[in-house]
């Protein structure tokens, strides 16, 4: 195998890192060139990811090692789990880039925006392919820093408030995470991500230390995954432009947190150890509480993006729940939700952006009759919302179905109750929006059919249809579900 | 060498007085004087140390003192110029 092929994760990372560097160097001039570079980088990344996907499916593992600190390496390692996250991010990045170009047309500071945007995706690629906790942390922090200028992009004092809250939470979280990583390092030396975990030897000798480390790692990552009670930054951050919300909620940030939790449970501690030390149970409880709490808070929000944000708080915890239940079926449900939730939530945020950009609509009660004015957008919104509720055969149903099966199989029937309650709550906060949009009469000043411009509508349609497709065609060979089944099979039969 | 050398006491005293002066004086000129007291104490100590060499006074500490004096004096002269500038800042260009 040639070195260049073996180093694929590095190329994937560099494709957006270099794009970022060039965009920063170009400055505010040359808007066309910038757009060209953005799209070219996104397409190139897609191709690279495709090549890698084929390789991993064929059983190849890509790995790159760079010595960083004495005794510690920067490891980029593409395995099946990485590919799940990478593919999602790469596809959604292309969609989000096109959307952002249209959304920010003629607004100031675009070079800065797109530069940091590319940097965010580069960091996400690093997180997805990180081969040890150290590498994970490096990119995790890079993501934190690169996202901040996007959150405060508008430069208003409200945006600054959101940026500050974002930083307080995420930097606090990463301090906790760093502490956990250093403790783990001093306890067990350098560790790599290995299916089944590497810490089984220490369970007998030092369970308290392991408990502390687990708590620190999960708390540190839980901040980005918006687990209650450290979710506060996410709803505040919705003041950012719509593409940034898409990035936060679907492409990168919360996913990075959830992905990290998956890594810690699967590849650092291992499922068996997590379960035998009793951590799995606790994690499941925290996730369940977040699911219910997020949905409840969502009901009372009157701002569309804020309601969607609380919905994310709730939905991302499905992933954590699936992992915490610690059996194959639930794991499938949780991991596949990583993709499903991403597609559905990005559709919803794209739609919210279309509403805001085309008609200046932010509050839910301004949505009356919007279905008639923007039928395509509203149709996509409906698809996303119904998927979130879990209507068969949409994507959300698939995830919840496997989660439920897993809960039954594991004998944890209370989880089924949580799922049902959550579904009910989802319906309570989504259905009224759909009712308003389709059945309420539009306001007086109805200016007839006025769809969003093609640059916004295109990505929205793409995301919405993709969300539909992953549910409808879940049984097919290349669907995310099939990939996750393959992955879980590998994870559970080491 | 049997008795207590009075100059050892004097050297220690000069250093201590200088440090005390540096701590309690506010005026920069007084502080500069205090620093020079410390310096003189250190130089005296070095000269005492030089005499402990069996073969006669040790030239190495003596050379150190000579170097030290020149450095101290030139730095003090610079300090005095700063004090003069501080006392009369208004005239003169912003060179």
């Amino acid at each position, binding site marked *: 195998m040639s070195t260049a092929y073996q180093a694929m994760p590095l190329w994937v990372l560099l494709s957006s890192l270099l794009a970022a560097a060039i965009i920063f160097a170009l400055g*505010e001039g040359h808007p066309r060139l910038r757009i060209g570079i953005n799209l070219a980088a996104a397409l190139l990344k897609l191709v690279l990811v495709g090549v890698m996907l084929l390789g991993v499916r064929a059983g190849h593992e890509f790995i790159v090692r*760079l*010595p*960083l*600190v*004495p005794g*510690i390496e*920067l490891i980029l390692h593409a395995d099946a789990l990485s590919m799940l996250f990478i593919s999602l991010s790469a596809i959604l990045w292309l969609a989000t880039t096109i959307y952002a170009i249209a959304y920010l047309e003629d607004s*100031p500071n675009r070079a800065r925006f797109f530069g940091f945007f590319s940097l965010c995706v580069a960091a996400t690629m690093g997180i997805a392919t990180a081969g040890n906790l150290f590498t994970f942390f*490096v990119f995790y*922090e*890079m993501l*934190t*820093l690169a996202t*901040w*200028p996007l959150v*405060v992009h*508008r*430069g*208003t*004092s409200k945006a*600054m408030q959101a*940026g*500050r809250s974002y*930083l307080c939470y995420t930097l*606090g979280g*990463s*301090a906790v995470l*760093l*502490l956990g990583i*250093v403790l783990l*390092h*001093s306890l067990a030396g350098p560790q790599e991500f290995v299916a089944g975990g590497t810490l089984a030897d220490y369970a007998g000798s030092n369970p308290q230390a392991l408990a502390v480390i687990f708590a620190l790692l999960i708390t540190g990552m839980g901040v980005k995954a918006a687990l209650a009670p450290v979710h506060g930054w996410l709803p505040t951050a919705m003041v950012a432009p719509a593409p940034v919300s898409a990035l936060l909620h679907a492409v990168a940030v919360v996913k990075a947190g959830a992905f990290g939790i998956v890594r810690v449970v699967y590849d650092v501690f291992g499922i068996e150890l997590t379960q035998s030390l009793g951590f799995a149970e606790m994690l499941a409880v925290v996730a369940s509480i977040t699911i219910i709490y997020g949905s409840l808070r969502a009901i009372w929000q009157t701002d569309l993006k804020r309601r969607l944000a609380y919905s994310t708080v709730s939905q991302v915890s499905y992933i954590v729940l699936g992992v915490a239940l610690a059996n194959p079926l639930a794991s499938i449900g949780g991991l596949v939700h990583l993709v499903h939730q991403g597609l559905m939530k990005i559709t919803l945020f794209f739609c919210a952006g279309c509403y805001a950009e085309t008609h200046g609509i932010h509050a839910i009660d301004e949505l009356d009759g919007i279905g008639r004015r923007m039928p395509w957008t509203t149709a996509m919104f409906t698809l996303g919302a119904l998927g979130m509720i879990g209507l068969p055969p949409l994507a959300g149903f698939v995830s919840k179905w496997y989660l439920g099966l897993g809960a039954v199989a594991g004998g944890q029937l209370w989880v089924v109750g949580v799922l049902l309650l959550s579904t009910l709550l989802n319906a309570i906060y989504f259905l009224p929006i759909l009712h308003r949009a389709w059945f309420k009469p539009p306001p007086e000043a109805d200016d007839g059919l006025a769809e969003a411009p093609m640059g916004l509508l295109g990505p929205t349609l793409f995301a919405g249809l993709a969300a539909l497709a992953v549910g409808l065609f879940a049984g097919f060979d290349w669907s995310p579900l099939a990939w996750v089944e393959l992955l879980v099979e590998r994870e559970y039969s080491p | 060498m049997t008795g207590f050398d009075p100059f050892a006491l004097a050297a220690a005293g000069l250093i201590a007085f200088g440090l005390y002066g540096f701590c309690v004086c506010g005026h*920069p000129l007084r502080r*500069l004087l205090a*620093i020079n007291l*410390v*310096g003189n*104490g250190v130089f005296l*100590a*070095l000269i005492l*140390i030089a005499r*402990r060499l069996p073969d006669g006074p040790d030239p*190495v*500490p003596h050379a*150190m003192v000579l170097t*030290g004096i020149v*450095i*101290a004096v*030139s*730095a003090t002269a*610079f*300090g005095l110029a*700063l*004090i003069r*500038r*501080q006392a009369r*800042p208004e005239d003169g260009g*912003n*060179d």
Partner: protein
Amino acid sequence: MTEALPVLLVFVPFLAGLGQFVLGRAAPWCQQFVSGLNLILVLLLSSAVVHGDPVIADLGGWGEPLAIHLQADGLAALMLLLTAVLAVAVSLYAIPAFRDEPRPAWRFWTLWPLLLASLNALFLSRDLFNLYVTLELVTLGAIPLVLLAGPNKTVDAALRYLLFALLGSLVYLAGVALIYAQAGTLDLALLPAALPEGTLSGPLAAALIITGVLIKGAILPFHIWLPAAHGNAPAAVSAILSALVVKAAIYLLLRLWTGPLEPLVSNDAGQLLGALGATAILFGSWQAFRQSRLKLVVAYSTVAQLGYMLLFFPMAVTAAWQGAVYHGLAHGIAKAALFLAAGNILYYLGQDRLEALRGIDRPLAVSLLAFGLAGVSIMGLPPSGGFTAKWLLLSASLQTGQWWWTTVLIAGGLLAAGYIFRVLRLAFLQADDATAPHHGPVPGPLMAWTATALALLALALGLISAPLLDLLGEMPGGTS
């Protein structure tokens, strides 16, 4: 051949400075040659050091214990490397920064090579008294440079700096005298064997030397001269002062602690220095957070960042040694970038009050980027040299079971994030009117990009630490 390198490192810039003084007018291009040559010499020296034993030059050929020796080991080579890289960057930056002022420019181009020679001399010295002379050289080269910003507004800071520096070096000299009285030699390499055990003078000498160096290094509670001096000097000078001049004192402390003072100091003294460092980190960061002028924020940040290097002393293991020295490097590069970026802002706005920063993100995008990137290293976030250093220090603290330093390290990072983002936040806030008042032109590419290059280098230090730490080597005299 390699034996001549240390000598050349001192005398090439020294003679350049003398020549510049005689010339009587500014010749910036000469200095570019000198800093370039200096960098080449340092690279040659480093490659000689990394491939074998330390490079030693016996001045005058009188041998031990009489002659002064110049010696370059891993630690010295790293500090020389830092100095050489910053010398290149600062010399380039100073061309446009001093272009409009012929007379201060001449003085800058005279004093700066002399200071460069002094710094090189300090890092290369292997003699206690020679170190005193070089310490004085460095300080007395630095203070006139501070005055370049205009004597009227810097005279107070310069005077305070001078008084503390003089006191510090005399206290140090008192310690040196006592050491000579016991050991009969000033050579650092001979001292550990020559110092007798169980005397009263030994610990007293160590205490005096350490105190003197702490005063020179502006370590809390002796920091009070630093913010005014560093905050008011011209940007290029502030960068040199914060990145190199105070660092030189801490370097000396590291060198002496692991060398001649090793048998004289106790673990309690290490804990005390660590406590001073921790206090400096917390207090300095908090003060930086409270300042209302940009350059004072950066200056107080130096007070805090120097504290990290002191955390070596309580732990005294190789990881801590590497962490402290690497922190010195990373902070040097990042702090220089911060000061140069702040200098660009000052150049454009004509002032550096924080509330005036609103909306400068558009005209000064590159400088602001430099500020942010350098800030990453200051905060100790990855990937950056600051993070690598912090990681090493964290590992050391857990390795030695002194977990309390972990808390300090993490809290320090968060506080640093506080003051860095406070500045960025204001810069990103949009101005109410599009044309905010400003004083000067937008800084040219040379000024903007030297700052950015340094900031990028600070990040790159996080990726290339392996060869540098290899050059540094294990802690001298350490076991693990």
